[in-house]
């Protein structure tokens, strides 16, 4: 098996999760890379929507560096603005939200506002919701990319930016007035998580070859449910790595970043 980096594993796994004949609302970086990989392999009729207003672009100028990048509008079938992108989503035309965040809890609620201090005087303020809060609310399924660390998989997040299953009650999302069905997958470089249908709690579905469920639990602050059908994560093959390294992100803008400790 070829050697690969953590971000390459995340992008490859993200690609695997996306099905053909769907529409994915992408955030900057790995979500775009995962979606491009999916288009080039098993999902040729997957289309991307970017919040700046591009839908169904053909990314022939290469990887857009941001969701507002002019390259993200190349040969789109529809190009408007933020209202159009999010209203298509509210209406039910977008299958997947592909977002990130700084903290996540067992019900898939995600924080991308701040850590430490109070909202009114934060210790470490992040950029804010951006599109994430709206994507998690109204895309049909939410896929999150997270770094697998104890300080990020926590019991209580400092701020709920992107709604998951709330407190886990069956009607939390309905009472919140949102339309999507909620958290679907959480992707890290060592594990893939889903959510239990009954309890809506995070469930370990796949682990990196060589890792055990106990290894993953070590990196998570709350108690994980373990799938009775726990599997090994599929690893990227030579052709997948060639696509990621030579075709999709040849400059290594996102795939060659160092893992932040």
């Amino acid at each position, binding site marked *: 098996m070829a050697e690969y980096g953590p971000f390459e594993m995340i992008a490859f796994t993200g690609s695997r999760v996306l099905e053909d004949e769907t529409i994915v609302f992408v955030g*900057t970086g790995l979500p775009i890379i995962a979606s491009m990989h999916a288009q080039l392999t098993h999902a040729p009729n997957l289309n991307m929507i970017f919040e700046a207003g591009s839908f169904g672009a053909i990314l022939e100028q290469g990887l857009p*560096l941001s969701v507002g990048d*002019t390259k993200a*509008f190349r040969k789109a079938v529809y190009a408007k603005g933020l209202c159009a992108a999010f209203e298509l989503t509210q209406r039910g035309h977008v299958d997947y939200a592909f977002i990130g965040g700084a903290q996540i809890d067992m019900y898939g609620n995600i924080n991308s506002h701040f850590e430490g201090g109070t*909202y009114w005087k934060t210790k470490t303020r992040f950029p804010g919701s951006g599109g994430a809060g709206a994507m998690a609310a109204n895309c049909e399924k939410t896929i999150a990319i997270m770094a697998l660390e104890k300080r990020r998989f926590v019991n209580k997040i400092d701020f709920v930016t992107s709604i998951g299953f709330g407190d886990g009650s069956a009607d939390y999302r309905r009472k*919140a007035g949102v339309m999507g069905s909620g958290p679907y997958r959480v992707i890290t470089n060592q594990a893939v998580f889903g959510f239990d249908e009954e309890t809506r709690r995070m469930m370990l579905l796949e682990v990196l070859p060589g890792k055990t469920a106990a290894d993953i639990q070590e990196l998570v602050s709350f108690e994980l449910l373990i799938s009775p059908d726990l599997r090994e994560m599929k690893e990227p093959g030579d052709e997948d790595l060639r696509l990621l390294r030579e075709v999709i992100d040849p400059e290594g803008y996102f795939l060659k970043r160092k893992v932040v400790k």
Partner: protein
Amino acid sequence: MDKFIRSSDIRKISNLDHDELAKKSEAPFEYWGPTPAEARKRAVAKPKGLHDKQTTLKDAVAKHVRDGINLGIGGFVNTRVPIAIIHEIIRKGAKDLTLSFQSNSMCVELLAGAMILDPNHVSIKRVEMAWWGYEVIGIAPLFRYLISNGMIHLDDYTNYGMSARFKAGAMGLPFIPTRDHGGSDMELVNRGKMIECPFTKENVYLVPSSNPDVGIVHVSAADKHGNARLFGAHCTCPELALASTYTIMTTEKIIPTDSIRRYPNLTEIPYPAVDAVVEQPFGAYPGACYGYYWFDMPEFLNFRSISDEFRKTGNKDKLKEYYDKYIFGCETFDDFLSTRPYNKLKELRQKDGGQPIIID
């Protein structure tokens, strides 16, 4: 009204400070700018004919930008951002500003830096927004500095929330229902409200409209009256221009009104929404403008690293040097652009890759 007010179950999971939240919920609602009725009054009072609205940025900013206004900022993150207008606002000075935008990088960092250097010249009182950062380039150091020191008041929405607020402002409505914010902590901290929908009886989240005093946008092409075309991302520029009581517009190119009339479907901003038109090539630089030029990444990196150095060390020297040289040391935005080598601007045009636009 109170009998319609509802909430999600966010309080069951929120980690926010209860005392602070209680204080917030007691505060009466206010628009952070003109009310919908005031915004309408200002529109009604304007002469409605087709007039040549071309002017200089110096005159446009002197005429419309005052202390205490709500400034609506167009573009999106690093794309078609009204940098030239921001430079002029900083040169002129404006205090106690309320800033309204969805997502932005350099426009708001430049205003924050001006405030850090001389709060008696430029200052930000409060911000209603969704996102403040540089995307791939990193977090916004000056934003983090202002927030960590409790120097500005924030009101957080999603990107759709802010866009919908401008849209409601553009529609002459006091609010607009959205399907987001509910069930997140934004429901507790921002000025929207959850109500019971009178038709479905389900919860739905309302956000107040936004009608900034002054909206600033940079567009792909416009005629002298302010009829404007946008190519690539529209961002929320049409909604913002229509919502704002005065709009200052820079355009890459002034095009003939004959062309506007030949393709009226291409007009995204109609002239009554516009008060000043300034032809300013590279008006979004170092941001990108579809069909004209791509981002100048090294310039973003440079200003961001100067800003981050200040955040980490508290030393303002390099920041001050940047403003003295590139903003206060320039009479116009063309003077600033003259500090860039021709080859650099040419390279940015090439990096756009000839995106097709219709400007004839």
